[in-house]
């Protein structure tokens, strides 16, 4: 159908890029979510004064463009002689970026649980931890899920910026092919389709969980 110079090995190159996108996203979203949950709980627990420094740092991560964070992060690791490869630097920066947003999501989820419901749990003799584990966590997760899915998909697309540190992820791989083959339309369509294929299951999973939880 298409008269194209695109070969199978070129497709393989694109898929390798896609794998890199997936890897960076998976690591960053996992680490960022864990950190975000910890920060979110801490922010809810400590008084307003102690929350200020944490909030300030997180606000910085949310307001400085990711590209600048990546470049600065890379500069920092080389000044500090950490010797991190670009993959590590990318994951660290993206994780903190994700954590900054995730903290807000978690905080919002926790505060959506009515204090009276939590008081009822405590009045039954449950400890703070049991209340968190059996009441707050499930209820907050339900509330936070849509935003968290949005964050994950956003991070997946933003992860394209790690190409500035020399990582060949999906977008960079497409660029390389476009430059070489001069067939931008076809290659970018394939690239977009792959992004869609990665996003779709995540978005569907979110929809599925929301539906499953809506019965109660």
């Amino acid at each position, binding site marked *: 159908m298409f008269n194209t110079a695109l070969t199978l090995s070129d497709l393989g190159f694109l898929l390798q890029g896609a794998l890199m996108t997936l890897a960076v996203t998976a690591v960053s979203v996992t680490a960022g979510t864990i950190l975000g949950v910890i920060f979110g709980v801490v922010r809810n627990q400590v008084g307003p004064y102690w929350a200020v420094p944490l909030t300030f740092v997180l606000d910085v991560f949310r307001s400085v463009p990711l590209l600048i964070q990546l470049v600065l992060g890379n500069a920092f690791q080389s000044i500090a002689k950490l010797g991190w490869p670009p993959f590590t630097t990318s994951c660290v920066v993206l994780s903190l970026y994700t954590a900054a947003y995730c903290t807000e999501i978690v905080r919002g989820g926790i505060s959506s649980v*009515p204090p*009276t*419901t939590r*008081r*009822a*749990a*405590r*009045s*039954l*003799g*449950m*400890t703070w931890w*049991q209340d968190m584990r*059996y*009441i707050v966590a*499930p*209820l907050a997760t*339900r509330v936070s899920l849509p935003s968290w899915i949005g964050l994950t998909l956003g991070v997946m697309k933003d992860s394209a910026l790690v190409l500035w540190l020399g990582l060949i992820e999906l977008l960079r791989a497409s660029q390389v092919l476009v430059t070489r083959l001069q067939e931008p339309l076809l290659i970018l369509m394939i690239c977009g389709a792959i992004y869609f294929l990665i996003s779709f299951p995540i978005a569907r999973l979110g929809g599925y969980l929301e539906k499953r*939880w809506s*019965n*109660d």
Partner: protein
Amino acid sequence: MIEIQNVRKSFGSLEVLKGIDLTVNKGEVVTVIGGSGSGKSTLLTCINGLEPIDAGRILVDGTEVHAKSTDLNKLRAKVGIVFQQWNAFPHLTVLENVMLAPRKVLGLSKEKAEEIAVKQLTHVGLGEKLSVYPTRMSGGQQQRMAIARALAMSPEYMLFDEVTSALDPQLVGEVLDTLRMLASEGMTMICVTHEMKFAREVSDRVAFFHKGVMAEIAAPEALFGAPKDPELKKFLAATH
């Protein structure tokens, strides 16, 4: 026995409890009446340690509630409380709502907790609703579930804070019936209520709170029949 001795409690500059003394014996039903803001709810939340107190002490079977060494979670298993808002755990079924604390706090096995939960739910007339989610039930049913949830911990004392106030009038009866049943079974209870007829029926003693002071306490016949405190007289005249 619950012994409340000269308890004082302020929120900021507002003194809500101004030296309350009250002893509730095993098997006794004491109802608390009084105007809005008189400190009734605050007293109940202090009794099971949900709120700290500023002075005085509260003893439950000799254990000082607000002493540092007291294990509040253990105490709360012994002193159940049900609030005006029923506070169902919306992500759990009715059965799971009731089973959760016996399993996690008392450490009972799943089978044992389920047996107790089914028994208590049947007791309050919800035996048919075990696998329903609470949000699918009426307020009266949710409130009875909250009562079963507290009872499943086998408490020795029960505190009820206006458990019918948030209910539609036609649902009040079923919840009051549940309380009457508990009273007749010999449960030690402190009930804050606006239902004067109910207070008159079930109480051994009725306490009238006014502005943080327990202005009068007496057997229901005496308190309703021959009130002494002028504020109580006004209050009773207004609630007719």
